[in-house]
């Protein structure tokens, strides 16, 4: 038998799921799905009627994870109804991997040990590439396609090309993964990923915690990629062990790109030269160094979302807010990404630092990120947020404006009442 040609991590993951020795970019294959994740908004309330119509059952209830995060906690009868429907459906369908009001799906999924290198996972949410941070091939699908997966356990895909985004050097103080991804959005644009697989690599990555890596993979969605992979390493292993994944199930060695595997594009970035970035309305690609937007006054600063309110994010905010107060005329809202995040932040004093500075704590969930919950904006208001998207009208009224920045930058804006370079507040 001929020797196997070198393959990228993405190709290896797709090949395994498709039951093939070798796959080539452009080929259309059918993959077996290891896990399907849904949330309350795009999940049961949408797929249940479809399954009923088909009179079909789940292909494997043990491979389904449901996480209620979008409409939590209920603010009116409609959202309460959606959450109620979700609880009842999960029970009836025999889904035991159900996390109700425990935080945002992309954060809860790895936190509860559902991910590991080598898996092929679909999620009913566009930020599903987050799973790529764990060496999992994960991407987002709509509810109808999810229904197809729930019935058959399979999905078609075009084997992606691999786009390598390479980072060298060490980030300076006050500069974070969010700044890296905004810089990549600025350089590549929101369709730079061409629905292919992005792989983030380079020595900068080795120095990043899992939560920071998740921010990069999460916003592969903003680059228009299907997934955003990071090859697993010791940091991945330590995280997975800490959430209870058995050591024997963590395979680091297999899930690496071969040294001579072909990537179709490579873009190089210099971490040491990176300054804090801010995305101006209404696109993450509209990003520039924070100095460009210095002085823009903000009505609201929002630290929330899967990409911007994990434990590391809250610690970044706390390092700015320690001993300072939120400016009068500005409100700082913080929605920790998960219940576990809140517990960790309470245990290490982070939470107290945030509230002493005048931050208003909101419940863990999607909240104002997509305009679903508490913290939405009035007409003509300006907000700076640690979220992933600043599309027109996404956080509330159509005329509101949202700037994006790292938790450092958002916290600094809350203190100043306008956008500033957070490094001025880190001593």
């Amino acid at each position: 038998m001929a020797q196997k040609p070198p393959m990228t991590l993405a190709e290896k993951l797709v090949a395994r799921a498709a039951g093939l020795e070798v796959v080539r970019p452009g080929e259309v294959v059918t993959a077996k799905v290891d896990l399907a994740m849904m949330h309350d908004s795009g999940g049961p309330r949408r797929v249940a009627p479809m399954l009923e119509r088909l009179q079909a059952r789940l292909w494997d209830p043990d491979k389904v994870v449901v996480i209620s995060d979008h409409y939590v906690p209920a603010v009116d009868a409609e959202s309460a109804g959606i959450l109620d429907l979700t609880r009842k459906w999960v029970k009836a369908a025999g889904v035991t991997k159900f996390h109700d009001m425990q935080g945002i799906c992309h954060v809860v999924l790895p936190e509860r040990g559902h991910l590991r290198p080598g898996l092929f996972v679909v999620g009913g949410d566009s930020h599903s590439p987050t799973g790529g941070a764990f060496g999992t091939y994960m991407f987002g699908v709509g509810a109808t396609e999810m229904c197809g997966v729930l019935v058959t356990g399979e999905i078609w895909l075009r084997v992606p090309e691999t786009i390598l985004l390479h980072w060298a050097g060490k980030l300076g103080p006050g500069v974070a993964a969010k700044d890296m991804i905004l810089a990549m959005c600025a350089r590549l644009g929101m369709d730079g990923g061409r629905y292919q697989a992005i792989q983030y690599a380079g020595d900068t990555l080795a120095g990043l915690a899992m939560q920071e890596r998740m921010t990069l993979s999460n916003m592969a969605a903003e680059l228009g990629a299907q997934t955003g992979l990071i090859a697993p390493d010791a940091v991945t292993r330590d995280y997975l062990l800490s959430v209870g994944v058995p050591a024997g199930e963590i395979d680091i060695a297999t899930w690496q790109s071969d040294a001579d595997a072909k990537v179709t594009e490579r873009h190089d970035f210099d971490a040491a030269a990176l300054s804090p970035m801010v995305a101006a309305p209404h696109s993450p690609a509209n990003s520039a160094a924070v100095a460009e937007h210095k002085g823009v006054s903000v009505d609201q600063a929002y630290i929330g979302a899967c990409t911007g309110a994990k434990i590391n994010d809250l610690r970044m905010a706390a390092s700015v807010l320690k001993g300072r107060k939120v400016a009068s005329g500005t409100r700082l809202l913080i929605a920790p990404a998960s219940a576990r995040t809140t517990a960790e932040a309470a245990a290490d004093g982070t939470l107290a630092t945030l509230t002493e500075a005048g931050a208003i704590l909101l419940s863990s969930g999607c909240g104002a990120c997509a305009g679903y919950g508490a913290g939405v904006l009035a007409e003509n208001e300006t907000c700076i947020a640690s979220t992933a998207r600043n599309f027109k009208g996404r956080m509330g009224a159509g005329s509101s404006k949202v700037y994006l920045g790292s938790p450092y930058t958002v916290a600094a804006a809350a203190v100043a009442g306008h956008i500033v370079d957070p490094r001025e507040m880190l001593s």
Partner: protein
Amino acid sequence: MSAASTGRVWKFGDNIDTDVLAPGLYMKGPLTELAKHCLEAVEPRFAKEVKPSDIVVGGRNFGMGSSREQAVMVLRELGVGAVVAPSFAGIFYRNALNLGLLALVCSEAGQIRADAVLSVDAANAELCDLDTGKRYACEPLPAHLLQMIADGGLLPNLQKKLKVQRSKEAQA
């Protein structure tokens, strides 16, 4: 999808996102209500004046953003016959086909006139401007996807397959 569908063009720019197609603010309500706000942030006339089988012509990366299928469902609710763009966001594209909405990748979409009336030939992946006669080639869709759209989307397509499977099981 009939071969001879024709419709008026509604033209939009690059990066039309899912929040503009299906604004989060109205996502809890019924689809008919959501559809009234489709694209209103960029073209308030659209939802009021669009006619069945009209054609939405977008710019690059049409449908970027969230995975919400409502972004496709509102277009179907309004009767849109096809969406044409030089490139689509991946999830929107998959959703469109899965819901039986023809989405055609056309590198020359930018040249289509804003008020043109087009005929759409899905099987041959071709558009024709009925006034000028100019033809626009689109990327052909693989046969299994054309079949799925013809069936009305993934669900009817699955229904067909399940029926075959169940009758086989019944015989076994």
